[in-house]
Each structure stands twice: as C-alpha cells, then as structure tokens.
C-alpha cells in the first residue's frame, strides 16, 4: 500500500510539473516575445519595452519559470493585464460556477450511466440492450454545445420555462442559481454519460461471467441482490478509472458550455482573456484547470486502492 501511494504521489507531482512546463513553453517561449503578443505587432517600441521590463521578460526563461512557480506556491498569480486585479481574485469568483458545474455534470452522467449500463447488461442482446446502445451511440455523436442550443430553443423559446442563459449568482438564492444551471448540466452530462454507459455495460458483462456470480445465484441469491452486492462493486473498478479520465472532458465541456449559456465562469474568462491577449490570465487559468484534472485523477487512484484490495497487495 505504502509503495503504491508513494509511486502515485511521485507521478502526481511529475505530471503537475510537466503541465506547468508545457504551459510555460507554449505561451512564453515558442511564440516569441510575450510582451509583443500582448500588445500586438503594431504597438510602439517604448510600450513593448516598458511591458517587457514590467513582466520581467529581460530575465532568462528558467528564472521566470521558477518565479512563476514560487509565486503560485505563495498563492500569488500576478495581476491581470486587462482588469488590473489580482488573477487569484478573478479565478475565485469564476470557480464558484465552473467547479460545481463540472462536478454536477459528472454526478448526473454517472447516475445515468450506471443505471443505463446495468440495465443494458441485464438485458444483454435483447431489445433493452439494443435501445441503450443506440442511444449512447447517438449521444456520442451529438456535440454538447449543439445540445445546449437545442435545449435553449426547446425550454426557453418554445416552452418558456427558463431563461436562455445567464447566471443570477449564488447570492440570488440557491433556487434561482441552480435553476440557471439545470440546462447546462444536462447538455454536459449527456455526452459524458454516453461514453460511461458503454464502460459500465461491458464491465458488468465481464463480471457477470465470473464464477462467483454463478455461485451467488446458485446458493439462491436473487437477481437484483446479486447485481447490487456482487456485480456492481466489482464492475465499478474500471468504471471509476474511466470516470477520472472523463473529468478532463467534463472540464473542457464546461468551458464550452459556459459560452453557450453565457455563464460567467472560467470558460468565459479564458476566451475573454484570449481576445484581450491577457497571457497572465490564460497561463494561470489553463494551469489551474489542468491541475484540477490531475488532482481528481490522483484522488481516483487513491479511491481505486480503496475499492480494489488487489491494488494494495500487488505493489
């Protein structure tokens, strides 16, 4: 167990470092002069020079990278170039929307997928199985942002049940705030659920063929209880892994969906920052989102050891 944890921890730290190096190289080294990127090619030379000095771009790249990381360790990400506010403050507001959105979508997708996947497996090669697989094949092909637009057309334009987008903020009360998130969460969850349903189904089918399932049924355990007590728990092992990997998709989907529903989250902030060439916001925002994905996957690795005792013993 200890070896497993230490190995996971080392790979977790390496991935974080790798992600930050990749971001730094992609934004500050490969494109050339960041000051020129931020001000545009036709900016006066004096302004570019001033910004270069201001950002400390005259120093060597490794030093700048280490400075960035040291700042992050102290919780400082610098000032936004366009808003002139600490980037950390900007993020804190946006994350209040983005993080719940991504997790809610994952939660809904997992519920849908486990239900549909178990159902399909228990109806293997019959009409129910065929129906679930067809629906998931379709769900895989539907872009989440198009689904979002369709939901807006149906529920906001035709039925008039909700607004077409926007977010009143958590201070407007939990009801209105959650209400504004229902359609975005559904739009995000359908794609994720389509992928996960297939994993749940095939993992369940795999376990259903195991000897211990036959034993359980033979000793008189009911169909439903066998599924819940023996099959589900064993089938969850690959499912949880894929859930961790899907979290990256959930995060990316959130960034897109926020633009569909005009939700003031990280996605909106990032695309605003791209058009304003606010590299400081982009750099830290991308690292934050990537770090979130890495942390979730690390947590999944730990969870894995909890669900499956074999992982603990093997290492």
């Amino acid at each position: 167990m200890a070896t497993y944890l230490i190995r996971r921890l080392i790979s977790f730290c390496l991935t974080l470092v790798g992600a930050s190096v990749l971001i730094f190289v992609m934004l500050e080294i490969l494109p050339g002069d960041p000051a020129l990127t931020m001000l545009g090619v036709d900016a006066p030379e004096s302004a570019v020079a001033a910004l270069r000095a201001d950002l400390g771009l005259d120093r060597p790249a490794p030093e700048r990278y280490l400075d960035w990381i040291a700042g992050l360790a102290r919780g400082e990400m610098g000032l936004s170039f366009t808003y002139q506010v600490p980037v950390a403050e900007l993020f804190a507001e946006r994350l209040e929307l983005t993080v719940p959105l991504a997790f809610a979508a994952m939660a809904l997708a997992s519920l849908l997928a486990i239900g549909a996947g178990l159902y399909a497996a228990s109806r293997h090669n019959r009409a129910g199985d065929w129906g679930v697989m067809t629906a998931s094949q379709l769900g895989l092909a539907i872009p989440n942002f198009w689904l979002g637009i369709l939901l807006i057309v149906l529920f906001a334009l035709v039925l008039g049940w909700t607004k077409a987008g926007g977010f009143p903020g958590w201070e407007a009360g939990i009801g209105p705030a959650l209400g504004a998130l229902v359609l975005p969460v559904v739009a995000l969850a359908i794609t994720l659920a389509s992928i996960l349903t297939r994993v749940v189904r095939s993992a369940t089918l795999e376990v259903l063929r195991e000897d211990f399932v036959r034993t359980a049924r033979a000793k008189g355990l009911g169909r439903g209880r066998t599924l819940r007590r023996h099959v589900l728990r064993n089938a969850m092992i690959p499912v949880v892994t894929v859930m961790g990997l899907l979290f990256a998709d959930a995060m990316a989907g959130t960034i897109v969906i926020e633009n569909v529903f005009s939700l003031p989250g990280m996605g909106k902030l990032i695309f605003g920052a791209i058009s304003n060439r606010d590299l400081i916001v982009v750099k830290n925002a991308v690292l934050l989102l990537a770090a979130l994905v890495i942390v979730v996957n690390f947590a999944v690795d730990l969870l894995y050891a909890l669900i499956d005792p074999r992982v603990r013993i093997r290492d």
Partner: protein
Amino acid sequence: MWRHRAFMVGTGLSGLMAGAALLSLFWTPHSPTQIVVRARFKPPSWEHWLGTDQFGRDILSMLMAGAQTSILVGLIAVSLGLGLGVALGLLAAARRGWIEEAVMRLNDLTFAFPVVLLAILITAGWGPGISNAILALAIINVPIFARLSRGAALTIWAREFVLAARAAGKGPVRITAEHVLPNIANVIVVQATISFAIAILAEAALSYLGVGSQPPDPSWGRMLAESQNHLFRSPVLALWPGMAIVLSVLGLNLMGDGLRDLLDPRLGRRGRA
C-alpha cells in the same frame, strides 16, 4: 447481423459526407460565401433547399463547403498524429528503456490536457486560426497512437515468428517493418476512424468558440455560433449544421466499430459480449 448493418449505415453516412465535400470542390447550388441581402432568412424552397441564413447565404451550399473544412482538418490532424504517434510507439516497443519511459510519461501528461485546453494555449500564443486548431488536434493524437501502437507492438514482439525472424538475423528495423507494422495495422486503422470522428467534433467546438476556422471559410461550428444570435428569428438555422455534425460523427463511429469487428474478430467478440 446488426453489427454488419451498422457498418453499412456508417459507411453510407461517411460516404455522403465525403461526397458532399468532393462535390463542393466543383459545384454548390449557390455560392457559400456570397451575401444576398434581399434573400435573408428565407425558408426552404426550390431555390434554396434548406433556406438561407442572416446574410442570405444558401444553407445547403454552406453545409457542403463546411464538410470540406471538417474533412480537411480531420484528415491532416489525424495523419500527423498517426504518423508521429505510431513511429514513437514502434520505437518504444523495439527499443524499450528510456525511450519507452519518455513516451509513456508524455502520454500521462496529455490526459490532463483535453484538446480544447491545448487549443486555448496555442491560440493564446499564436492567435486563432484553422492551422492552429489542426496543430492542437494533431498534438493530442500523437500520444493516443503512440500508446496504442506500443501496446500492440509489444504483443507482436513476444510472438514466436518474431523470435524466428531474429534468429534468421533480421534487425529491429526490418522486423518492425516486415512483421510488427503489418500485424498492428488493423488496430491503427480502427483508431484512425474514431480519431477522425473526435477531430470533427473538436473542430466544430473550436470554430464555435471562435478559435477554429475563421470567416469567411465555411464551418459547421461557426454556423452554429452565428445561428445562436438569431434563435428568436429563425431557430432552424441551428438545426442543420448540428445535424450535419451528428450524422458525420455517427457515420465514422459506426464505421470504426464495424471495422473493428471485420479486422479483429477477437476484439470484436469481446466488445460485443
């Protein structure tokens, strides 16, 4: 039996998309870019089969030309990712050691970077554009193909006929070219189909967000973004490009599933079980 039918449907849909794109190279019912102010928001008619948009452009012509963009992006991105990825994967399998370790660590890294995030990085550094979207998609595909081909190649390297080839004095390059590559080609073809479908979805998303193909190049994603400004006036504008995306992606996915069954019966049985 159903699988076979799904494969036919998939091939049919993919063919339709490719056909529309090819045809649009020579002919579209109208110009996909020409603005006709008096023909704005026209409903479907004999003149304009799917109607016109907010600039009076013919929707069907735009969809056909948009297929070109999708195919172009998918084809270049997947080819680049496949070429580099398979080369790395084969090298890792043949050489093992630190090369293999480096390839696998790189692979670990990319799971934290969904293509949208990578495209954001590239766009922020170099500005938006179709070539940067292609670059992001190609980069994302490298580790996918590297991991896949390494795994498949390792099982081939462990087979007796490879041992025989080595005993006969063949070097690693010849063994890779003559024995390993032909035996893993089927897995790669299947993945290429799936990657193509994912690339079409991603290109649409990036263009929707304004960091993919730029006006006036026709693109399904940007058609959707523009349609959203006119949802009250003409909600059907949001319908057609979305359907085009769904049918193309569905077609490629079904074709990929079918190919998996045809090329690798062993894998297919497991997938079906």
